[in-house]
């Protein structure tokens, strides 16, 4: 189903064919849930937030103009909902000196992340990802796991494309630093 078809279905929903909304629920509920559950870490909260996201999207459906795909549009709602939810709950904050990033060489980062056979690295990476803040986790998930384009990530996170690029660049270095200085 392309953007145009999705937009036509949304227009029909706005005209009163509410049942058609279940198409989007069946298609995208797992994608939204898998994103939120990695941010809020509680299965129950994530499910409730996913429901919230779809309800919010339904209420705002008349503001969807089809410029981007429905998934990108709803990711934006999911992003805002998940980030607000994490702000309401107590989160463990991991202090990190951002100036350390500048000392990390890009070549070393490239070499480390090129290797996907190293099990120890795999384990360390997962531990390091837990130390990232919700915005950083979301950026990582949207880029690597969901395969969203930089422009779309920029639109989801209300940033410029250049800003997304810079954040991703620094995020890789931060992960490298966290892995190599684990102890």
């Amino acid at each position, binding site marked *: 189903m392309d953007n145009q078809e999705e937009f036509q279905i949304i227009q029909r929903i706005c005209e009163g064919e*509410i*049942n058609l*909304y*279940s198409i989007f*629920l*069946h298609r995208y*509920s*797992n994608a939204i*849930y*898998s994103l939120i*559950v*990695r941010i809020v870490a509680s*299965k129950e909260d994530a*499910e409730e937030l*996913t*429901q919230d996201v*779809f*309800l919010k999207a*339904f*209420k705002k459906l008349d503001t969807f103009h089809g410029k981007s795909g429905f998934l990108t549009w709803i990711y934006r709602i999911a992003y805002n909902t998940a980030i607000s939810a994490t702000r309401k709950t107590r989160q463990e904050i991991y202090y990190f000196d951002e100036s350390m990033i500048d000392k990390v060489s890009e070549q070393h980062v*490239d070499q*480390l*992340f*090129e*290797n*996907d056979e*190293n099990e120890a*690295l*795999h384990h360390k*990476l*997962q531990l390091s*990802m837990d130390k990232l803040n919700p915005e950083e986790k979301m950026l*990582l*998930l949207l*880029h*690597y*796991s969901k*395969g969203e384009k*930089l422009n779309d990530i920029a639109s989801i996170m209300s940033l410029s494309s250049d800003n997304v*690029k*810079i954040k*991703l*660049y620094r995020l*890789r270095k931060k*992960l490298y630093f966290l892995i190599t200085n684990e102890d």
Partner: protein
Amino acid sequence: MKINMQRDKAILKALNEDVFPSLSPNFNERAMQLIFKEVKRKKKRNFIFMICSISAVSVGLIVLAFYLLKHFLSFNFAVHIQIPSFSLDSISQYYFDIYIAVLILVLISLDHLFRNIWYKKKYEGSVGQ
């Protein structure tokens, strides 16, 4: 500065192999029920808003009409509006009026009841499809 997703194989693997719980099997049905509830609530809200708007406009027009009649056309309400008088002869006529009014109320209530049943059947049928 280039970000090449495919080059970062380790990050891709760590994220894609991360096992996360799945949604409850009836999640989509529950979400759709919530959507239908929201639609109902919205309709109710719009109806109340419409009734309030119509009432406000009607009251405004009546007040305006009274004001215009009294101050600009020097209309004397005490002279022109008759106070209804009740006598024994007219009571049978009132009984008939009351009978008609009750009949209309019963018919409107039945119409409302059958419409509700029809809508419920229609929605339940379409959700199950």
